[in-house]
């Protein structure tokens, strides 16, 4: 596995030319990883600053839509002197196939990282076919 000396957390701003945005605040694409294990697909998404109760995960047709909203309350009484990252909401969507057992998708939020576990459907898992002796 590649280990970089300086990890980066970069989020790309969602430009309003491809979509229609409503509501307050900017939206960003968070960075994410997708891993495959023998039984699951795991999606990890960096969403620093989002509370567990401000995450919505929707599955519509083939699309898994993840939104996370960030509160900026804390800054109200403070004067910002230096700013390197933008605070905004997060949005990311993934198209999923029939290879996933949709009833058993699980999500967990830990330390600003959302992890989604998408179990593989039974019909795509490798199966061993036993040879019967006659």
């Amino acid at each position, binding site marked *: *596995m*590649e*280990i*970089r*000396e*300086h*990890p*980066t*957390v970069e989020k790309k701003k*969602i430009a309003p030319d*491809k*979509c*229609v*945005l*409503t*509501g*307050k*605040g900017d*939206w960003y694409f968070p*960075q*994410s*990883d*997708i*891993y*495959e*294990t*023998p039984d699951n*697909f*795991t999606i*990890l998404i*960096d*969403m*620093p*600053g*989002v*509370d567990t109760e401000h995450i*919505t995960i929707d599955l519509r047709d083939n699309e898994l839509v993840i*939104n996370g*909203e960030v509160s900026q309350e804390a*800054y109200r*009484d*403070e*004067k*910002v*002197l*230096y*700013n*390197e*990252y933008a*605070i905004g*909401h997060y*949005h990311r*969507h993934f198209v999923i196939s029939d290879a996933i057992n949709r009833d058993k998708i699980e999500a967990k*939020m*830990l*330390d*600003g*990282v959302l992890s989604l576990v998408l179990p593989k459907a039974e019909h795509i898992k490798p199966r061993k076919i036993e040879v019967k002796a006659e």
Partner: protein
Amino acid sequence: MGLIKWERTGPLDTLAHIQGEMSDLLNVLSSAPRGEGYAAMEFPPIIVSLNESSVFVRAELPGIRISDLDIQVMDDVLTIKGERKPVAFGVKTTYLRRERSYGTFARSIMLPEKADVEEVTASYKNGVLLVTLPRAAEAKPKQVVIQKA
């Protein structure tokens, strides 16, 4: 809550998408240190803010264990060191997409003023580190009482 409505894409939009991806790639390749100058490459990105009593340093550090973080203050320099470790699944894993990166980092920040070193506190919530540095007594404005002669 805000809503995002995505435009449904037609066949020509796919071409536009490829063009967009290519220009993103060219941007990445042609500008070695991205962003405005060197500071943009520093990790973690920080926000420094201030109120009457304290200086606040916030850093976006998602997915790091508290035990992997090391924070030190000396006079007016704050140092944040740590390591972001890759997730271990314990079974055979392949990855299909990797945008997040891992590794060690260290960063020192010059604070806008001297902090009361004994009273510095740090908390880590939802992947955001918040270091609260109470302003040292000499840095706070002192009211001078005018004596009647």
